[in-house]
């Protein structure tokens, strides 16, 4: 497809103005993509959801059958290359499937672990022989895959792994020793991607078959949620792994480990967006059904406000995830498929958006957390009872803020990578920060042009970026490269950057699709944008102030706070009406409305 879209660098959104036509939105999906979404939905509704109770009780044989069934439908081959029988579809397509697979957390996690971190390292780094041997089995579901990075004593500090590998005296095998922890699909996987240090030094990935001598999954963990998925340790005792099963280069395991996580984070963003939509529908349906004081509770402002806030946050979550998928697709489309180092370039293409992938993971999982919490609250006492799905949604949600890198690790990555790239001169952060400081010193009388759609929000967006820049600039100047040790400040900067990306994705999508929308949809869009922009402005304000208080004092602090106040100002007149409008549309439709 010919595209004139501008390709933005990772993190560039903080210093550039992004045009609406450069963002991908769910409205851009093709007919085939919608069909694929439908097949996924039908499969989940028809074959997964009727089996939730059995799966929750650890019927893993059934889980494996369902994964194979997903394989028959082609759902496991979306990301695999055509030459090995895959479909090699876009990231946006892959995210759409991840979103639609989500209604039952236990299955979604098993599916994502298999197709994502389980299969992708082989796709990206496997040799021809390795792919020929394993990939065909994985994309049909004949074999199930798992990814083994975490250990009992190394989680976030993944490179601190203790598992070792030593070459056998005859040079034909590596002998692996150690324990891998919290392995999704652990009890029934056929192929494990295991990370271990050769001679205790060189961090390396291995393709380990379950039937290799010395390989044994441990006991099933008893979990808070996603109970239908299998989580076990993997115990390696002189596990005999043939030398040809080293994945990628010796000593380069960290590249594999972290690159798989970038896609994993984006996919998690899509997945939790789907889960949040599902939980939201449960909440809205219940609000219509449950009567108190003689009327459905959905008629009360207290419930309407919750519904409106959730609907707006969901719109932001969805807009963000698909915008990012589109950014990655556009970038990957520039790589010539014939080039010998295709996957090397491909990896770099994804790594370019490591900041945004971390943002998607954090923002979307936080939205899901808020949504399931409010959905339980709307259910009142019944939300606490297992009879309604709300209770399971609430438990299943929690893990999303922990795995694929905790939300703290991911938040710290956001300003961390940004500042690193700024130092390398890849992003003009200093220059733009100076401009923002100048703007802060100059009084402004600019009035947003009310006749342009979303003019106020676009002005806000540009101001929020200035707020981020002045604070990030101040912190960077004060701490220089020691800032990496100031985690509280980094977390606050991340919160600002994350909300800016989210509100930008929201406004650009609304702006892009407004023209073709019906009157009813237009008012829904305007309402969602207003509700979310108000929320995001408040969040950025809070985060920026926090960072300012942490990093500065005296006159500098006063000046910064003045700037933040000015740059986070947003006139949300009509906010109440916007919330009511949004809630009423959702209550009428009894589902997510965009």
């Amino acid at each position, binding site marked *: 497809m010919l595209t004139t879209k501008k390709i933005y660098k990772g993190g560039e959104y903080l210093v550039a103005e992004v045009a609406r036509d450069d963002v991908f939105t769910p409205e851009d999906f093709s*007919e*085939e993509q919608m*069909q*694929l979404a*439908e*097949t996924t939905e*039908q*499969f989940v509704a*028809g074959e997964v959801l009727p089996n939730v109770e059995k799966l929750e009780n650890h019927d893993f044989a059934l889980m494996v059958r369902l994964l194979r069934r997903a394989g*028959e*439908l*082609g*759902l496991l*081959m*979306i990301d695999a290359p055509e030459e090995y029988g895959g*479909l090699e579809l876009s990231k946006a397509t892959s995210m759409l499937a991840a979103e639609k697979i989500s209604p039952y957390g236990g299955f979604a996690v098993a599916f994502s672990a298999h197709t994502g971190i389980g299969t992708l390292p082989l796709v990206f780094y496997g040799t021809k022989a390795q792919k020929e041997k394993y990939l065909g089995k994985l994309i049909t579901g004949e074999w199930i895959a798992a990814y083994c990075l975490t250990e009992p004593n190394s989680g976030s500090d993944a490179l601190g792994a203790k598992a070792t590998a030593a070459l056998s005296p005859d040079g034909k095998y590596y002998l692996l020793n150690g324990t891998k922890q919290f392995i999704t699909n652990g009890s029934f996987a056929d192929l494990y991607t295991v990370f271990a240090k050769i001679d205790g030094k060189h961090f390396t990935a291995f393709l380990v078959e379950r039937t290799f001598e010395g390989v044994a999954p441990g006991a099933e963990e008893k979990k808070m949620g996603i109970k239908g998925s299998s989580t076990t340790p993997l115990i390696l005792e002189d596990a005999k792994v043939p030398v040809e099963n080293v994945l990628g280069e010796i000593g380069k395991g960290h590249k594999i480990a972290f690159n798989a996580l970038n896609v994993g984070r984006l996919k998690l963003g899509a997945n939790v967006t789907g889960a949040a939509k599902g939980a939201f529908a449960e909440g809205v349906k219940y609000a219509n059904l449950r009567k108190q004081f003689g009327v459905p509770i959905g008629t009360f402002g207290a419930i309407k406000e919750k519904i409106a806030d959730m609907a707006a946050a969901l719109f932001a979550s969805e807009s963000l995830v698909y915008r990012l998928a589109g950014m990655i697709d556009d970038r990957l489309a520039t790589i010539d498929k014939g080039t010998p180092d295709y996957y090397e370039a491909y990896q770099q293409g994804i790594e370019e958006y490591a900041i945004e992938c971390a943002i998607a993971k954090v923002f979307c999982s936080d939205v899901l957390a808020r949504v399931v919490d409010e959905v339980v609250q709307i259910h009142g006492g019944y939300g606490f009872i297992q009879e309604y799905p709300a209770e399971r949604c609430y438990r299943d949600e929690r893990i999303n803020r922990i795995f694929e890198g905790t939300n703290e690790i991911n938040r710290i990555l956001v300003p961390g990578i940004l500042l690193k790239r700024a130092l390398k001169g890849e992003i003009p952060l200093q220059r733009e920060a100076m401009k923002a400081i100048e703007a802060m010193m100059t009084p402004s009388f600019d009035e947003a042009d009310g006749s342009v759609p979303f003019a106020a929000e676009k002005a806000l967006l540009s101001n929020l970026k200035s707020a981020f820049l002045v604070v990030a600039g101040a912190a960077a100047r004060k701490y220089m490269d020691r800032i990496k040790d100031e985690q509280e400040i980094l977390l606050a900067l991340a919160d600002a950057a994350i909300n800016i990306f989210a509100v930008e994705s929201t406004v650009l999508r609304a702006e892009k699709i407004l023209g073709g929308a*019906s009157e*009813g*949809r237009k008012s829904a869009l305007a309402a969602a944008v207003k509700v979310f922009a108000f929320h995001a402005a408040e969040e950025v304000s809070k985060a920026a102030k926090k960072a300012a208080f942490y990093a500065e004092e005296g006159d500098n602090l006063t000046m910064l706070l003045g700037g933040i106040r000015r740059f986070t100002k947003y006139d949300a007149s009509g906010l109440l009406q916007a919330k009511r409008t949004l809630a009423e549309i959702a209550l*009428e*439709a*009894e589902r997510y*409305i965009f």
Partner: protein
Amino acid sequence: MKILVTLKPVPNPDEKVKVREDGKGIVRENIKTVVNPFCEIAVEEGLRIREAHGGEVVVLTVGPRESDQQLRTALAMGADRGILVEAAGDLDSLAVAKVIAKVAAEEKPDLVLNGKQAVDDDNNQVGQILAALLSWPQATFVSKLEPDMGCRKAKATREVDGGLETIEVPLPAVITADLRLNEPRYASLPGIMKAKKKEVKLVPVASLGVDTKPKVRVLSLTPPRQRSGGRKVADVAELVSLLSNEAKIL
């Protein structure tokens, strides 16, 4: 064996529908259009017959250009090619049957498979009218179908009031599919990708030379009355008393 399967795009039956303000139709905004579930069963049956006996499955729909999407669904399930007879506005059962008859005369299938009825207006007429127009035998509400190409006939089990009836029809014939005929497959992802390359022929309805002027007019639509909640009774005596005194049906 050549099988012509017809399919009707209908509003998604799982969504809440609202009657339009003029009372002549329903609000279609924000409601997804899907293949009528009975037509999906007909497509599946066509595919199974082809898989067992060889041949070709041609899917046909009558409607606006967007109906192409429902044809694509059938093609993704495995149908070989599609025909879209482009027509604006709602056609009544007679008009649709006339269009299908025209296409059937040209395609000369051994079998026409329809859904027994469409879940939007539940008319349950097209198959029957079509068989009459073509002067072909018909078997409606079919829950089991066994074609025998050698003898050019098919055995069809029909769901009738109070049981099953098995009949034999010579081919070509019109068959309408009931719910229990089969469970349709999902369109697989490779199927969806392959469907992109399959042919869909566009035929303007005017080019067929059939009179599609509606003989049936919708005067008004009303949503079903809201059901009031049930009530529990303590014993049979109370039930009888309520039935005779309150409901006055005893």
